[in-house]
């Protein structure tokens, strides 16, 4: 007779941690095990790192994803500093070299894409049940990409065309290698058709973004591949909604059910959402080449709006039906990000219809980049980082440190308050065309970004401390 209670599972499970992907390793041969006996006299296999068993083949070394996440946290701070430097012109920014453009790319390349690379390199092999094929390529990508982003941003800010061109080349090579890694993983993927479809769309968008971005960067050096207007019209939607957006939407079909401990969302609806998004991208691409510009852009926004509505319905249903109802402050940011995604489409409509408001394009950029993508990603990141840290710290230990203990502290609360306040003040600065408000908003955002960096450093220190403690204990046994 067991003592298991027969009452229903509590509605609200403990909510302190990231509910992750359940997967293991079928690819790496288990390390030699020694048999011991448990208190009931049964044989138990223990190995160095047995807590993870043979599962490490799908895990990159901690240093790889964490260097991407750490760089993202540093570039996040740099982005706010750059925006402060360019705050005078920020409320009516419409393009061109300078610190506002540098800030924009520190966010898109330095924070969003940096995190997307680190997260997808770690999560996709587990999600698609494949081994990590190479540990050198992700390291190479980082050492090309991070200096490339820094060079390109400084080149935009100063401005220095040679520096910008050098940075753009480094970024392009790094992203091309990343694209190969991603494609190899997707070709070998099993199951999860909606996730895979979204990531493939993101992959195609990345290829388009690379061509458009290089064309824009080298236009400053006198080279042209695409007319500037065409390149710009492709670059913005395919980078933000295409590459980053589809990656975020696709990975959400894995992450959100795992956070909430709920069943996977309906595949058919997710695929319909993906197809609608594809039709929106096709319309945007045609409009970029001057074909029926306004009708096609409006149609794209309509199709994109329905795609987003379907996606959000699936996400909200997943949260509502999940075992874990209270997902904490990180999901307040995620929900805000979703709201900003919808708001960005409304602002896009305003831009497409040429609404007579001077700050419309800037407001669209704020809602899209900082409101949707950055807010969503920071919410997700603050769950992923302590979870991965717990997993890596657990190697060789019977009981790992909990994600909540690694993340404990007030830094994330400070960050959340500052991030949301900064968005609100910057939106007001754009509406009122007020540079002082823009400066105040960037300073608030800067404080928040420093708090987020402090959170990251604290988690890493605790992870390293727990790992060292585990090794010391193991050595003393």
């Amino acid at each position: 007779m067991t003592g298991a209670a027969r009452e229903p599972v509590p509605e609200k499970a403990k909510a302190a941690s990231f509910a992750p992907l359940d997967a293991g390793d079928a690819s790496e041969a288990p390390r030699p095990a020694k048999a011991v006996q448990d208190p009931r006299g049964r044989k138990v296999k223990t190995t160095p790192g047995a807590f993870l068993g043979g599962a490490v083949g799908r895990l990159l070394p901690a240093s790889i994803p964490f260097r991407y996440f750490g760089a993202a946290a540093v570039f996040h701070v740099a982005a706010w500093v750059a925006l402060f430097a360019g705050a005078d012109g920020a409320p009516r920014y419409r393009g061109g070299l300078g610190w506002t453009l540098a800030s924009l790319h520190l966010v898109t390349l330095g924070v969003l894409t940096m995190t997307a690379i680190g997260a997808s390199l770690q999560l996709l092999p587990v999600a698609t049940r494949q081994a990590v094929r190479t540990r050198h390529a992700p390291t190479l990508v980082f050492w090309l990409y991070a200096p490339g982003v820094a060079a390109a941003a400084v080149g935009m800010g100063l401005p220095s065309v040679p520096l910008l061109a050098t940075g753009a080349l480094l970024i392009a090579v790094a992203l091309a290698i990343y694209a190969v890694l991603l494609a190899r993983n997707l070709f070998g993927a099993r199951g999860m058709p909606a996730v895979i479809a979204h990531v493939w769309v993101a992959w195609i968008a990345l290829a388009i973004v690379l061509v458009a971005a290089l064309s824009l960067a080298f236009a400053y050096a006198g080279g042209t591949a695409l007319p500037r207007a065409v390149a710009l019209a492709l670059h913005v939607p395919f980078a933000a909604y295409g590459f980053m957006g589809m990656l975020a939407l696709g990975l959400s079909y894995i992450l959100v059910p795992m956070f909430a401990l709920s069943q996977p969302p309906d595949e058919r609806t997710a695929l319909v959402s993906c197809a609608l998004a594809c039709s929106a991208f096709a319309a945007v691409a045609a409009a970029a080449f001057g074909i029926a510009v306004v009708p096609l852009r409006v149609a794209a926004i309509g199709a994109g709006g329905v795609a987003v509505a379907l996606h959000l319905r699936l996400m909200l249903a997943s949260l509502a039906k999940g075992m874990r109802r209270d997902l904490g402050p990180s999901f307040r940011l995620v929900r805000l990000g979703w709201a900003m995604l919808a708001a960005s489409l409304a602002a896009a409509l305003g831009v497409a219809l040429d609404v007579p408001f001077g700050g419309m394009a800037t407001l669209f950029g704020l809602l899209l980049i900082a409101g949707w993508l950055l807010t969503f990603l920071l919410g997700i990141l603050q769950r992923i980082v302590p979870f991965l840290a717990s997993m890596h710290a657990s190697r060789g230990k019977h009981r790992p440190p909990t994600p909540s203990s690694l993340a404990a502290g007030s830094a994330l609360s400070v960050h959340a308050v500052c991030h949301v306040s900064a968005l609100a003040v910057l939106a007001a600065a754009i509406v009122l065309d007020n540079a002082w408000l823009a400066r105040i908003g960037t300073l608030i955002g800067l404080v928040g970004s420093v708090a987020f960096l402090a959170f990251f450093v604290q988690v890493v220190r605790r992870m390293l401390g727990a790992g060292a403690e585990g090794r010391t204990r193991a050595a003393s046994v």
Partner: protein
Amino acid sequence: MDRDRGSELRSRRWVEADGIHIDVRGLPPPQPMVSILTLVESIRDATPVVVHHERDPLFLYPELAEIGWTSERLDAPAGEVRLLLTRAA
């Protein structure tokens, strides 16, 4: 909840002298984790849980630690990962 009923239908559970057994083989992610955590969260005493899995549930361990449970690897036939989950003292 519908989800709980679904998990119970898809994963097999039975009771033996060494604890409650749950077989989550063949379930796509994250259903094995949901099923295991649903079971573990429903246990009010020190009854252990034996998990029959087709792969090492890598990301389950921090979740278990978070709710005060530990895991040990047991001997298992080829192609199976068997875990003993116990409430931490």
